[in-house]
């Protein structure tokens, strides 16, 4: 009761003030989000739809798209497996070094992507720690597909774990304990109880992870070597095209990437809602008329 009266008191500002604030917020959105997005599509279609679709006939563009999808697929798979394990550990157990593990998971967020790329060059580059050993065995990591996958995985490392841990924590251990009491094995408990209870949170993490993996530029740029048709991912390919004055093609590829982002955003909103409903079933009754 007290809560709601305070809220309505907060809405006592005069009408012009309210409009001004709304306008400021919308203006900010338009300036920093909508205008750039519109510009990408406007540039892409500047010379008509034919020129737009011609950009996708290029073999190098398709190779870049395939490479980006491959890197994303592997990175997401690895980070999902890791994220699930880590979130399960952090969410269901208390142990020594728990805080350290949490901080370590956040590390790739804190480190600049360029540094992330350089780390791998320092480790696996020809002059790096393991470089000579790898070269003797003719194994190429840096400036080849494995390096791009590594860098992408590193940069997107925290997403799944970060999204899942709070969900796991919120769910507590009651259901698992009940399952164990009823005679379920460890695996059965995980697959039948734990996993279904966090599935929307998991999906949310996977979506965020995919979006970042697809768009990663900095770290991948350092380890790629920029060989067209070989180690250029989609974001790198866009940069290459732009630098070659092929603006329509560059923005066409950029628009494809933006579309993908929009789809991801829609999926994300959906998963987010389901996760929140899952965590807080009361919401369903409140929002229902």
């Amino acid at each position, binding site marked *: 009761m007290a809560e709601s009266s305070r809220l309505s008191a907060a809405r006592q500002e005069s009408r012009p003030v309210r409009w001004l604030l709304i306008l400021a917020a919308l203006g900010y959105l338009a300036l920093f989000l909508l205008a750039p997005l519109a510009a990408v599509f406007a540039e892409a279609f500047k010379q008509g739809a034919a020129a737009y679709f011609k950009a996708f006939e290029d073999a190098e563009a398709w190779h870049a798209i395939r490479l980006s999808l491959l890197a994303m697929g592997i990175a997401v798979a690895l980070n999902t497996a890791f994220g699930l394990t880590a979130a399960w550990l952090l969410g269901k157990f208390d142990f020594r070094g728990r805080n350290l593990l949490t901080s370590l998971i956040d590390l790739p967020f804190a480190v600049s992507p360029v540094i992330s790329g350089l780390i791998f*060059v320092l480790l*696996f*580059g*020809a*002059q*790096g720690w393991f*470089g000579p050993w790898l*070269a003797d065995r003719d194994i*190429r990591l*840096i*400036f080849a597909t494995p390096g791009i996958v590594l860098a992408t995985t590193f940069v997107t490392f925290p997403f799944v774990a970060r999204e899942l841990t709070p969900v796991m924590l919120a769910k507590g251990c009651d259901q698992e304990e009940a399952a164990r009491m009823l005679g379920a094995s460890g695996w059965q408990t995980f697959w039948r109880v734990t996993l279904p209870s966090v599935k929307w949170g998991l999906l949310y993490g996977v979506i965020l992870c995919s979006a970042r993996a697809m768009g990663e530029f900095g770290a991948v740029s350092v380890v790629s*070597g*920029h*060989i*067209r*048709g*070989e180690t250029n991912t989609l974001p790198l390919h866009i940069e*290459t095209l*732009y*630098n*070659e*004055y092929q*603006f329509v093609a560059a923005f066409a590829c950029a628009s494809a990437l933006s579309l993908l982002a929009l789809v991801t955003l829609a999926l994300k909103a959906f998963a987010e809602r389901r996760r929140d409903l899952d965590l807080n079933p009361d919401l369903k009754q409140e929002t229902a008329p």
Partner: protein
Amino acid sequence: MNRRARSFTLLALLTFALGLQAQNVKLLNVSYDPTRELYQDVNAAFAKQWKAKTGQTVTINQSHGGSGKQARAVIDGLQADVVTLALAGDIDALAEKGGLLPADWQKKLPQNSTPYTSTILFLVRKGNPKGIRDWNDLVRPGIQVIQPNPKTSGGARWNYLAEYGQALRAPGGSDAKAKAYVAAVYRNVPVLDSGARGSTTTFIERGIGDVLVTWENEAFLALEGPAKNKFDIVVPPVSILAEPPVALVEKVAARRGTTAVAKDYLDYLYSDEGQRIVARHHFRPRNEKAASHAFPNLKRFTIDEAFGGWKKAHDVHFKDGGLFDQISIIR
């Protein structure tokens, strides 16, 4: 019996696959920024010629970026069969830091291993509203000069050396005056991009600056691009003779078994056909008869004349703590 037949088939298939691989050969040419369009043409023409000569299909992959950055990548393991960089110093680094080719690499091919030369000119906005004619105009107050960072870009080093060298060689010039001159130029630079192409984009696309100091070929290319009517080229009376060299990365090519085709690829740049392609892309061919159009007339001093060679120029100007670093601090 059956098993033997099967293993025989497998062997035959393997041999076939290996044979197929021998029919296709891949080269990687790691180059600097403004040569993208040039090597696209060279690669297509060379592949055709190599196919006719040997029956082999050669695919040449390209990688472009600031010259220094590219050299760094090759040292770190980027598998370049050949490098075609902006300046000898960057290829020297491959020899010194990477041991990837012999120290005397520049003697392996004719004319200092540079099949084409270039120079540094100005690109200004249409009609030259700020009246930029000569080097001294770059240091006028209020003039914004666009050029890349000499730490990462080979073109920028040529820019720097052209600026320093002309001041040094001007009547009454001295090292002190030249140093003051380049410091003044860099004070007028609002953005230092990491490569020549980045600077071109800053000047042309983002519309920043009054004058772009750049490669001759880069300036001409801009005049052929979508914004051709918005710019003019200004040729100063004197500039530097820029020699962007090429080299076989012997260690990599030997390991990948591409030495023969990589060598032929570099030789091709000196051939009549190669020289014609070079000239078409506004690099100055060594064989002047190959040029289909005239190049601007200006006096070009060499790095040997003004600086006593690359090694010296590098040590004095671009090494950590060198003259460029000193003027950056003043700035």
